[in-house]
């Protein structure tokens, strides 16, 4: 990814976000009899973000865009992207399952899957860490410290 491509993408994304918030703010009262209304602040912020998005786009379109800047971060390769997706999938699974089957079982499944996806296969490490991060964490936080965590199978 070049600095120019990065900034073109960023500028376009900022304009889209500004349009979303600006459109929403237009449906709110801008000023009331007692002063600024709920639409006042978001409208100005959306305008400012649109200006910043336009400035980012314009800078990216200049002939010497990105010259003298450090190289941008590379996009992930296939293996790196898969590891990132596995991590996101694990958290999404916990968010989806924790109130249905309990925190500890959901976290146990997510931990086992994550460590496998990240290349750690030694069960002498994987199993105790997964149990500690799930049932162990539930025991310490929910049972001993009284932190509310959803319980499922066997009270975990």
């Amino acid at each position, binding site marked *: 990814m070049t600095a120019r491509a990065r900034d073109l993408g960023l500028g376009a994304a900022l304009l889209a976000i500004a349009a979303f918030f600006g459109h929403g703010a237009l449906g709110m009262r801008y000023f009331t009899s007692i002063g600024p209304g709920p639409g006042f602040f*978001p409208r100005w912020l959306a305008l400012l973000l649109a200006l910043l998005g336009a400035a980012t786009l314009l800078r990216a379109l200049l002939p010497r865009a990105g010259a003298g800047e450090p190289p941008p971060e590379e996009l992930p390769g296939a293996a790196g992207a898969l590891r990132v997706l596995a991590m996101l999938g694990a958290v999404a699974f916990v968010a989806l399952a924790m109130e249905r089957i309990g925190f500890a079982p959901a976290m146990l499944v997510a931990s086992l899957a*994550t460590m496998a996806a990240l290349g750690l296969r030694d069960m002498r490490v994987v199993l105790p860490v997964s149990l500690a991060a799930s049932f162990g964490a539930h025991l310490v936080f929910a049972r001993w410290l009284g932190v509310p965590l959803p319980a499922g199978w066997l009270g975990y």
Partner: protein
Amino acid sequence: MDSLWLLAGGFATALQPANLAFAFAGCLMGTLIGVLPGIGPAAGTAMLIPLAGALDPTGAIIMLAAIYYGAMYGGTITSVLANTPGEAASAVTCIDGYAMARTGRAGPALAIAAIGSFVGGIVATIGLVLVALPLTRLALGFGPPEVFALLAVGLAMVTALASRSAIRALVAAVLGMLVAQVGIDPVMGTARFTFGRSELYEGVSIIAVVMGLFGLGEVLSNVERRAAPMSAPAIGSLWLTRRDARDSAGAVARGTFIGFFLGLVPGLGSMVPTFLSYAVEKKLSPTPERFGTGMIQGVAGPETANNAYANAALIPLFTLGIPSSPTIAVLMGAFMVNGLVPGPTLFTEHATFAWAVIASLIVGNAMLLVLNLPLVPLWVSLLRIPYPVLACVVVAFCVIGVYSVNNSAFDVWVMLLFGVVGYAFRKLDLPVAPMVLTLVLAPLMERTLRQSLEMSGGDMSIFLERPLSASLLAAAIGVLVLSALSFLRAVRADSEV
């Protein structure tokens, strides 16, 4: 004199066995968080908020504050031994600290970092004791225009110094303010950008955003790169030579001064004091060309400034209710979880609590000095943990921390979303800290702006008619102008957060 009596009362509370244990546990956990790569102080403090909810408020805040400044010291250990800053503010310590370690002088580098951190922390806390009551009295006289103008100064500082590019910092700041628009509007009670979800009526959970941006976002970056376990060189003797002590004394004094005064400025972030201190030491040295080869001043100055800043940054929180960094914003959240509102009323309505926490800062800094040096081999052994193990543990703590604030799986989804945002910010070269700070400050900024305009019937000149708000706004503009000058540009070039 009042302050000293109140501080004595604070010590009576802070020295109770339970509170000493909380400070001790906080120092240990903070150092651990600072040592482990991929868990910065903001995410680390946020992860442990559930613990705070289970304790009494004084003990909880004493522990979280100790985690905060413990993490600041812990970051030094990996900077010196593995050339990897455990947290962002220690990045500059890598330069001369790691060079010292490679020549067999890791021990003196860690020792001077601990001593400097202790001196900086203690002096900044004494400063907090001295200015707390006068600043609180001043803050109680602030009207909405003054508060708005003060927040504008913070925003200007963030914009000027949080990134190489002022535009990129401003983008992050405005995005944070827009995220803060989600929820019930603070004056008329209209629902804004809530998509009909009742979970969003009180706004987006700040803890979920911090965990996403700093915790999960960092984990995603690390798993993409497949972070490898680190190895560390031998530590050697921890004793300083007479020459080391002589060379470091001035740097420690200057670092204390820089860290303390920059800690008073809302919104500055923790990297600027350390980089500024390094720049000053290099400038004042008769042999600037030897910086980077293991000059002890290059460790003593920034590490002292780091801890002086960390403690002084509590002053705007305690007296004005304004967080100076994402980690302080998390601490502010912890205050609120415990039913305490940081700001001028803290010293009137919860004086015992406030002075106990201040006294605990002195106790905790002393603990860190005594504790950490003998435990360095233990911390080093933690660097060998495989990253997948660390990633699993971090995710488990993040989920527990986020869920427990509102008992809501919805907040875990919010964390996931902001994890992706944090990962994208790193790819897009956008600084993360301004987003968190403006997310926290925007509701107060909007409320004071709207109250000011209600007072004036919509006339913006109210900000210029009041001397203090006019001066503060002039200062904000001055900061933005100064940011274009080379001096600040040199500092911010390396201060990517």
